[in-house]
């Protein structure tokens, strides 16, 4: 048995979160009746302990694709789940991860066998039920087999308005030559204090492209880590975050180049409103022996309020000579020239400013796999900017 409390808290430089009490969780037992977000999409929706929606084509089922709640998967395929779990994130990595490993009671399991090409976007929706004061403690486990190809849209939402916490650990394994598009839309509610740990293991010649949209309303710690272990493993990690009111969002976005000729690119964009705080820590690490590896990162933060706080800290740790690496970071204000251009066509300053801000986040918008996901993000940007006035 792991004793989580003896392990250190994860390191989120420049984020003060000790008062958030993320290391004291009481897993919620709440259940739910109906789906809230999915209607006719391929995918699964899990609310609290209940699977409220599940749709997977007969064809994919016949090819061996497995999509269920994590608890159901553990009953049906115990060896498989046990074999895959903790491969990417060790149970004892830090206190919050360990605690999740000990206490999780819900989640999602997706297994895509080798050579399966999934034609539709698969939706993986996990909803926290903030109906009592108890917390969400969940895991997602995703395996994409060799040469398989899939586009995933993963969502985190809150139903209810009680003050709670959420701990979500997500492991993604991309086997050799797999191609994965992984987009996530994090939208926990204002009363939710969350810890999200999302990590991918990328094997030989596999590609994992991530679009991480962090639009939760409350306090959030997000760790995004890609392990480019295989030869020629490639990952592009796009992060788009919007903070408003008094919330704080802290990120550690890391790519570890282990494989020769592996490629890890981090691209982060953040918009900070009101009295909120946003901290981007970007880490590119190249391990000795990862010859020909490429580690790049760019973090840009737009500060829209004098009372806001923003940080973009790039870090490159390189133990190999034969590599390429670079970083750029900036904290700035709205581009006056863009604003002028839009206003010169008759758009009011308010509308022009919104479009410029949306444009700033635009690269990530473009990476979302469905029009409805893009619309949702655009609506969220509008809503949070409304609040600014």
């Amino acid at each position: 048995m792991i004793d989580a409390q003896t392990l250190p808290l994860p390191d989120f430089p420049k984020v003060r979160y000790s008062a958030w009490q993320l290391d004291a969780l009481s897993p919620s037992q709440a259940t739910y009746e109906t789906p809230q977000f999915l209607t006719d999409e391929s995918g699964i929706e899990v609310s609290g302990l209940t699977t409220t929606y599940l749709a997977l084509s007969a064809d994919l089922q016949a090819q061996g694709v497995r999509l269920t709640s994590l608890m159901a998967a553990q009953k049906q395929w115990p060896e498989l789940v046990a074999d895959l779990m903790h491969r990417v994130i060790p149970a004892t990595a830090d206190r919050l991860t360990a605690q999740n490993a000990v206490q999780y009671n819900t989640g999602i399991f997706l297994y895509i066998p080798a050579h399966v090409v999934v034609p539709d976007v698969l939706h993986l929706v996990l909803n926290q039920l903030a109906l009592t004061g108890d917390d969400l403690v969940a895991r997602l486990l995703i395996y994409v087999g060799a040469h398989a190809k899939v586009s995933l849209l993963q969502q985190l939402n809150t139903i209810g308005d009680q003050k709670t916490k959420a701990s979500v650990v997500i492991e993604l394994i991309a086997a050799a030559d797999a191609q994965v598009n992984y987009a996530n839309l994090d939208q926990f509610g204002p009363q939710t204090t969350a810890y999200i740990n999302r990590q991918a293991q990328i094997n030989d010649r596999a590609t994992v492209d991530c679009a991480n949209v962090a639009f939760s309303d409350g306090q959030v710690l997000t760790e995004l880590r890609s392990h480019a272990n295989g030869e020629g493993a490639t990952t592009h990690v796009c992060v788009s975050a919007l903070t408003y009111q008094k919330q704080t969002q802290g990120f550690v976005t890391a790519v570890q180049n282990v494989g020769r000729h592996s490629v890890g690119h981090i691209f982060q964009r953040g918009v900070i409103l009101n009295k909120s705080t946003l901290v981007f820590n970007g880490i590119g690490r190249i391990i000795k022996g990862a010859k020909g590896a490429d580690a790049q990162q760019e973090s840009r933060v737009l500060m829209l309020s004098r009372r806001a706080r923003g940080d973009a800290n790039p870090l490159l740790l390189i133990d190999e000579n034969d590599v390429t690496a670079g970083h750029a970071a900036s904290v700035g204000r709205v581009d006056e020239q863009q604003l002028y251009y839009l206003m010169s066509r008759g758009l009011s300053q308010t509308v022009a400013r919104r479009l410029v801000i949306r444009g700033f986040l635009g690269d990530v918008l473009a990476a979302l796999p469905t029009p409805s996901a893009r619309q949702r993000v655009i609506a969220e940007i509008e809503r949070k900017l409304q609040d600014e006035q």
Partner: protein
Amino acid sequence: MTTLRIENLHVAVSGKEILKGVNLTVKTGEMHAIMGPNGTGKSTLSQTIMGHPAYEITAGHIYLDAQDLSDLPVDARARAGLFLAMQYPSEIQGVTNAEFMRAAINARRPEDQQMGIMAFIEQLDEKREFLGMTEEMADRYLNAGFSGGEKKRNEILQMMMIQPKIAILDEIDSGLDIDALKVVSRGVNHMRSKDFGTLMITHYQRLLDYIVPDYVHVMMGGKIVKTGDAALAQKLEAEGYAGLRDELGLDIVLTDEDADQYVEVAHD
């Protein structure tokens, strides 16, 4: 009829005086061209009319009919009927061309008379085809990844969609090959009517072969030093600006230094 009237306009950028008393009147139904060497303040004039915040009016006035423009912010000037086709249009990701143009059109209309999506697309298709632009451009992000020529066409497309009263075209010929120049000129000529006036700014006479102006003004040293008809442009092409300067007995040093560089400095 709408009249843009510029009276004794003095403009400074970062404390340096660029325009030193410009007088000019442009009415709807008229095509004006301003020519002049580099660094003489042509772009400064266009940006000042539109209301770019980096350009400070130190003396004089700009009127659109009875309205003094110094009272109006950029967006209100646009809604009052002004349009500026820019030399360097901004690129904005995440906002499609179509969405942007419809927003610009609807910004001019009352709440209960907004242009619907179908009517908009119909108009857009017609004008887009007229300018030889592809269908997919509507869904592309505003100027993002557009070539120089595509950006210029897009400026003209916006002008055709918005239907301003007075359009200022700031070096729309720069960076265009001859085919693109013809297309862009076709767009401007198509707009020619008694309800539309234009002020074209150019270095070269070539543009004026395709869009024949009613008036040609020559700007040097921050002032308009000579006004004539289309023949003046031909003469300039033959004799150069130095020839005209000497003929007028002006004491101006011609330089390739562009006044706009001061704006760039101010932005840094």
